């Protein structure tokens, strides 16, 4: 090992009192956070500042922030790998580490925010693919798996190097040897590993984009002013890469200072990443203008209230601080140190200071995304409620847990920087950039068994063809006949026209907001007019006295007994023939008892009659057709793309890790080691396979 590698090795082997003090400090913060969380579990979320109106607060802010920070790591490392950038070698490891650790913190923030974390498994028992929350569960868990693999794969050769190094203590060498999966460093192994890393790098890029898009969709899939925005997906992705790039620069600076890695992390890295950060800053500026100008130009109802709060109201200080820290200040500072020759000597402090501002500003910006929108609903429910029920002020519990989240992030980083070297030995050894073959993933004949596609189709057909159980219509009651004879029949055209001219519909009516919707998501066209069709029914009653003679000019009352009351149609006089008729143009379905009543007078006794009138078949119990994505079953239009996208990712992970690394790479590890300094392997390299001729394999 050369001196700079010896120095790097010291970061793993030597621990100072400063390290223990720092870990002790972080553990203290973490303990306070754990205490606060236990308190919150006991008392409920009432101990936070969140209430019905602002029902998400710091926890969701932290969640979005950490998921955002997690992006750049992998994305930058993956992009730099795919484009085979030479200067990436010393910084990919620490970028990937940030990703894994930030995800480990960001994911649980949602659990901390949950009212019933004990019921978390309901997400798997009853999960609905229509919900953005489930999209996040799928996306983030896939992403975390991918990032752990992507962090682990480039680590394998370094683990073998450490396992063979005498400065490392015994149990750690055993651990490293186990984890290095039989890496001996043959040319073939190297080739396979680089291929595996390339595949992961290619797949991790769309995955990272999808995850932050899905996070933004939690907000964008609502009807809230400020969230109901079509650019939220790309806006979040850019914001995430931007804050993540800043996170990478910050950690580069910190690790360089602490472990004296000046030989590895040079000003060129700060300059190049600074240029990257500058370009992200410009893109972020563009997205900010796009987001706020389109809303601010029109100032439509709810948006106006929100923008007033942001620009000049209670959120203005945080909003403008966030804008200053994320856009204005870093842009000016980085243009100065990167673009103006006389300031070039300040490139490291300038870029690092910008990154610090960006990270703080990004957190504030997440707060500005989450809280003000919830504070400005369409129907503010703050009337007659105490101030704190409509406003949001985080409590000490939330601040403590947030601080603990940051402490946990740094603690994982600190501890794992002691376990795994923060800079890749083997990659930096390849002084000259070696062209990495960008693997073309071919999947020969994977569909051939036909066992994937057919059951999938079958599954969806079965799941969505299950009919709702039909309820039986109410049994008709027997009519009671008295001297008041009643009959009903569907009304003729003339009767309809005479009945009520006022009720007739005009031909050119305009429906505000509700048109006929071809609803491809719920399957079937919802026809508004069909629901409104009226089948008029003519009722004819005949009032006769005991001898069977008609009684004329007597009031006869019509009414229908409904479930909750009696609907009266008023009183009509009988004609000379004793007949009285009425046309019902109700939008009613089903069979109902129609009461016809003659109250009687001095000469005639009262009489009444009931007849069951069939207004047509009651509709079968069904969920509203107009609804979108509310069925109790999975919606294939949502499910299939998710299965296809994330399923592809899982297949790629399984292939890369399960096959390429676990099977093929270990098999190839029998040739003599290619380390420049042949070191004893400590007798722990047991996982080797006898050489096999590659028969029938397409490599």
């Amino acid at each position, binding site marked *: 090992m050369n001196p700079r590698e010896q120095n790097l090795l010291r970061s793993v082997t030597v621990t100072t009192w400063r390290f223990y003090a720092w870990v002790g400090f972080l553990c203290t913060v973490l303990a306070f956070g754990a205490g606060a969380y236990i308190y919150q579990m006991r008392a409920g979320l009432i101990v936070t500042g969140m209430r019905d109106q602002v029902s998400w607060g710091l926890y969701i802010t932290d969640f979005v922030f950490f998921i955002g920070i997690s992006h750049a790591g992998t994305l930058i490392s993956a992009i730099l790998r795919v484009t085979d950038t030479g200067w990436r070698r010393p910084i990919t490891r620490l970028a990937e580490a940030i990703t894994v650790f930030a995800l480990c913190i960001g994911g649980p923030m949602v659990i901390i925010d949950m009212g019933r974390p004990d019921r978390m498994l309901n997400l798997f028992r009853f999960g609905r693919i229509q919900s953005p*929350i489930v999209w996040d569960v799928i996306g983030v868990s896939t992403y975390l798996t991918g990032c752990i693999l992507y962090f682990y794969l480039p680590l394998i050769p370094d683990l073998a190097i450490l396992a063979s190094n005498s400065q490392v203590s015994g149990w750690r060498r055993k651990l490293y040897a186990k984890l290095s999966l039989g890496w001996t460093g043959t040319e073939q192994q190297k080739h396979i590993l680089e291929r595996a890393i390339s595949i992961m790098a290619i797949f991790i890029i769309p995955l990272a984009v999808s995850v932050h898009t899905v996070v933004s969709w939690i907000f964008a899939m609502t009807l809230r002013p400020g969230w109901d925005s079509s650019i939220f997906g790309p806006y979040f992705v850019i914001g995430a890469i931007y804050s993540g790039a800043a996170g990478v620069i910050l950690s580069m600076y910190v690790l360089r200072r602490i472990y004296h890695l000046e030989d590895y992390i040079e000003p060129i890295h700060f300059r190049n990443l600074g240029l990257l950060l500058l370009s992200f800053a410009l893109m972020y500026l563009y997205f900010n203008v796009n987001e706020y100008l389109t809303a601010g130009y029109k100032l439509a109802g709810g948006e106006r209230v929100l923008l007033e709060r942001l620009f000049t109201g209670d959120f203005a200080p945080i909003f403008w601080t966030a804008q200053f820290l994320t856009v204005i200040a870093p842009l000016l500072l980085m243009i100065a140190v990167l673009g103006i020759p006389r300031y070039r000597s300040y490139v490291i402090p300038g870029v690092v200071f910008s990154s610090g501002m960006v990270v703080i500003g990004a957190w504030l910006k997440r707060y500005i995304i989450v809280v003000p929108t919830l504070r400005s609903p369409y129907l503010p429910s703050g009337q*007659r409620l105490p101030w704190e029920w*409509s406003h949001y002020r985080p409590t000490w519990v939330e601040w403590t847990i947030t601080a603990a989240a940051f402490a946990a992030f740094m603690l994982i980083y600190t501890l794992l920087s002691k376990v795994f070297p923060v800079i890749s030995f083997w990659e930096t050894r390849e002084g000259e950039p070696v062209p990495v073959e960008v693997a073309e993933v071919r999947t020969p004949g994977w569909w051939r068994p036909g066992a*994937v596609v057919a059951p999938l189709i079958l599954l969806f057909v079965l799941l969505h063809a299950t009919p709702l159980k039909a309820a039986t219509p109410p049994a008709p009651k027997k009519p009671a006949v008295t001297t008041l004879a009643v009959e009903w029949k569907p009304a003729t055209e003339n009767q309809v026209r005479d009945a009520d001219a006022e009720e007739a519909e005009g031909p050119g009516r305009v429906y505000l907001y*509700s048109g006929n919707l071809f609803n491809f998501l719920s399957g079937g066209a919802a026809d508004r007019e069909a629901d409104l069709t009226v089948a008029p029914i003519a009722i004819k009653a005949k009032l006769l006295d005991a001898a069977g003679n008609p009684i004329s000019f007597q009031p006869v009352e019509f009414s229908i007994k409904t*479930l909750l009351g009696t609907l009266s149609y008023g009183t009509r006089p009988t004609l000379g023939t004793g007949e009285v008729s009425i046309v019902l143009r109700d939008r009613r379905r089903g069979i109902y008892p129609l009461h016809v009543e003659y109250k009687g007078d001095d000469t005639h006794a009262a009489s009444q009659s009931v007849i069951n009138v069939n207004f047509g078949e009651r509709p079968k119990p069904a969920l509203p057709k107009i609804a979108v994505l509310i069925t109790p079953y999975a919606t294939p239009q949502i499910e299939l793309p998710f299965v296809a996208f994330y399923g592809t990712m899982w297949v790629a992970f399984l292939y890369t890790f399960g096959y390429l690394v676990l099977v093929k790479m270990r098999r190839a590890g029998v040739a003599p080691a290619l380390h420049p300094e042949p070191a004893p392997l400590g007798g722990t390299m047991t996982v080797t396979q006898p050489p096999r001729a590659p028969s029938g394999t397409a490599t």
Partner: protein
Amino acid sequence: MSVSRRGFFELLARGTGAIVAVGAAWKAGATRMFSEVLPARSIAPTDQKWVMVIDLAKCDGCRDCTKACSAMHFVPPMQEWIKVFEVSDNNVAGSYFLPRPCMQCDNPPCVRGCPVGATYKRSDGIVMQDDDRCIGCRNCIAQCPYSARSFNWGEPPHTEAELARPYSVDYNYPHRKGTVEKCIFCPEHLREGKLPACASTCKMGAIYFGDEVEDAVTNGKGETVQFSKIAKRGAAFRLMEELGTNPRVYFLPPSSRKYPSPEEKHATAAASAPMTMEHSK
């Protein structure tokens, strides 16, 4: 281990195929054999389509509906399942009282967003809330444009009467910490052929309730009117129609009021605390 790439993918495909096939068969079989198990929740015990009509011209803002609802459901403090707002559409127009129950939307955003199906649409139009299943993520609160949902932030204060019965989605109590609650049109009353608590209590007869299929709605004074007729003649509107939620609650415009307007009410009862919309401030 003699695993080739093709062999690996074949294994993967077979494994996935087997899992998917078994899962599909199991789920299909289960839904066929116990056809009521899965969709039963979504099928209402009766085949009505409940609808509510609130005549704003008759609402005098007494909040008896809120009190009756809270008493019947033991609604925890700071929650109002039906809340009476005092609103103004602009700075010039006078204010009116707007009772806001859950709108029981036909295109409910809360149901779309619920990750576990704790809130679900029933065939009789009610958006139900199952607090045995709710995980407390509050996505439905974020989704609801009517602010009709509330969360049990702490352990709600219990009473003997509330705890006397086991939990049921029909009445949504005993209340539980960490779950979301809302108005559910009193399914327990409906099953007995009674009006929901708010409608039966309203002395002004402002809240009409009934079955849309029956085309009749009844208010607390026992007056039954034809739903389609009052909706047509009264030019009924639904709240925030532009959001496409298709509520099942209709409002008749607050014109020709026969009671003091909110302003006059405030003037006479100077002691009562002023109630203003936050937005208008």
